């Protein structure tokens, strides 16, 4: 009977009360079945085709249905979402939203309710969830560090202060990624260090391994889809102080952090970086990986067996996201201001741009449906999400959204490094 309690929206409550009165005695069971879920899901259903979009200006999220290609419900009151990200519980029912203002909000995708919301720091950038789904980790700018929470209750388990032993200062934490075995890896922006936190023995006493001197200003990081490599982009390295990456083999952390592409761009004039690129997905075809150029209008090809730059693909602007379709066959690229009205598609095999589209001003993010037949694109200033067929590029649907930014589908629940 617990299911009868779930809807909390006013409309649903009124509906619930009316129905409950009408059918209180003889139809209690039927009423329960109807009331258990909000209007969008008045049937038993899974969450595999659900997701959400961050509405950054209003501090709300909108629940999405990727089968029906529609928005389901807006959930408000999530604070400052000007830079926000989401991870999912391992049953893919709950989303955890990390907000700029340090808010951490647990949302039930089935009922559309906020299950719990806490303010865990003053200024946060994102988070991750452990391999077994039991631990959430939040990366904080202020005060710089990482906090670990029980994903069931959002109770604080432990925290790590990102104070470098070398500089003695607190650093902003970026690129917090899950690594297998209830471990997390993250980078210290100011100190230029990569730290590993091992919570496998005792989540209340994380064991920290520190890799120092990994390069200047790591700005974002990713873990490869197989969970093996942690790669941090270094803003303060390379020509004119932009470029270079730091690589940690999570199978062999004892081998330490290796630097790659150290001379990338050296001696060449670079363009201003109006938005930090993201390193979120890692497209690998054979041994080739594709990463956004920093201060350059190109995608960089890296051979991951040697960690050498082996080529570049000129594109329409400075890439922000270079995202591989789940098949790995094509890359979708969006761009920083002022080219953020454009999306380009690169065929991995031929390394050629096979499609260029202009969805509108301020394309901020793209997310593929779990097997990649569609891509959802958020267009901030047009206040909409566009759904495109990844094979034909045809636009299939538009969904109104208020200043949409990140789009997150529940299939992330089962992927590494998120």
């Amino acid at each position: 009977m617990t299911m009868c309690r779930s809807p909390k929206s006013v409309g649903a409550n009124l509906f619930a009360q009316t129905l409950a009165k009408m059918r209180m005695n003889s139809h209690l069971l039927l009423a329960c079945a109807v009331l258990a879920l909000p209007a969008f899901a008045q049937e038993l259903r899974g969450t595999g085709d659900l997701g959400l979009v961050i509405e950054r200006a209003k501090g709300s999220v909108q629940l999405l249905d990727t089968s029906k290609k529609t928005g389901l419900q807006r959930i408000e009151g999530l604070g400052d979402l000007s830079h926000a990200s989401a991870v999912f519980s391992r049953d893919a029912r709950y989303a955890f939203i990390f907000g700029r203002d340090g808010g951490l909000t647990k949302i039930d995708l089935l009922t559309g309710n906020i299950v719990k919301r806490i303010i865990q720091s003053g200024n946060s950038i994102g988070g991750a969830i452990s391999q077994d789904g039991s631990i959430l980790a939040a990366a904080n700018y202020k005060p710089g560090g990482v906090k670990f929470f029980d994903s069931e209750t959002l109770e604080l388990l432990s925290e790590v202060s990102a104070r470098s032993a070398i500089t003695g200062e607190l650093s902003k934490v970026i690129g917090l990624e899950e690594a297998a075995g209830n471990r997390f890896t993250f980078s210290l922006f100011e100190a230029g260090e990569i730290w590993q936190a091992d919570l496998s023995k005792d989540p209340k006493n994380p064991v920290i391994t520190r890799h120092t001197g990994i390069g200047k200003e790591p700005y974002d990081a990713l873990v490869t889809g197989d969970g093996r490599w942690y790669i941090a982009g270094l803003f303060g390295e390379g020509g004119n102080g932009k470029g270079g990456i730091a690589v940690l083999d999570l199978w062999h952390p004892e081998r330490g952090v290796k630097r790659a592409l150290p001379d990338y761009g050296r001696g060449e004039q670079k363009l201003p970086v109006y938005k930090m690129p993201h390193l979120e997905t890692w497209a690998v075809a054979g041994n080739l990986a594709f990463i956004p150029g920093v201060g350059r209008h190109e995608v960089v090809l890296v051979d991951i067996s040697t960690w050498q730059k082996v080529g570049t693909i000129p594109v329409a602007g400075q890439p922000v996201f270079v995202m591989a379709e789940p098949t790995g066959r094509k890359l979708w690229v969006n761009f920083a201001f002022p080219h953020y009205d454009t999306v380009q598609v690169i065929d991995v095999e031929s390394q050629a741009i096979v499609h260029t589209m202009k969805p509108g001003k301020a394309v901020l993010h793209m997310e593929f449906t779990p097997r990649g037949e569609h891509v959802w694109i958020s267009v901030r200033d047009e206040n909409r999400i566009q759904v495109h067929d990844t094979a034909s590029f045809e636009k299939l649907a538009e969904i109104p959204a208020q200043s949409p930014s990140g789009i997150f589908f529940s299939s992330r629940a089962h992927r590494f490094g998120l």
Partner: protein
Amino acid sequence: MPRHSCRNCRTPDTPTQAEVFKPNPMLALGLGLVVITFFAVAMLALTALVHPAQAADLPATPSAERQHELTRFVRQECGFCHGIHLTGGLGSPLTAEALVGKSSDALEASILYGRTGTAMPGWMPHLNESDANWIVTALMKGFPE
């Protein structure tokens, strides 16, 4: 002093008392020139007093429409690093409290030319000097929503 009255004074083709009565064309012309020059000088002096910044040849204040664009620009584009509420992120906070005691000239230079050794890019040519001046003034007062 309202600016429109100054503009009237300066207008070269405004008839003067001397021109209307024409007692002597040469005298009238001379008087007219003297009167016009006097008012023009007075106007300039007053403008300089009232608007010292403009006297130093700085660009004009952005139009209302441009101010609207700039407000959105700062909240959205600058907001990626500095936060939509300007409370800071990878970039430093830009709230009025955070900027107390900072040099507005240095802040304007940061906007236009970037800050060496940091992730802050220069925004020329997308923003000009008057844009930067307006943004810094607005930030220091507390930025509009």
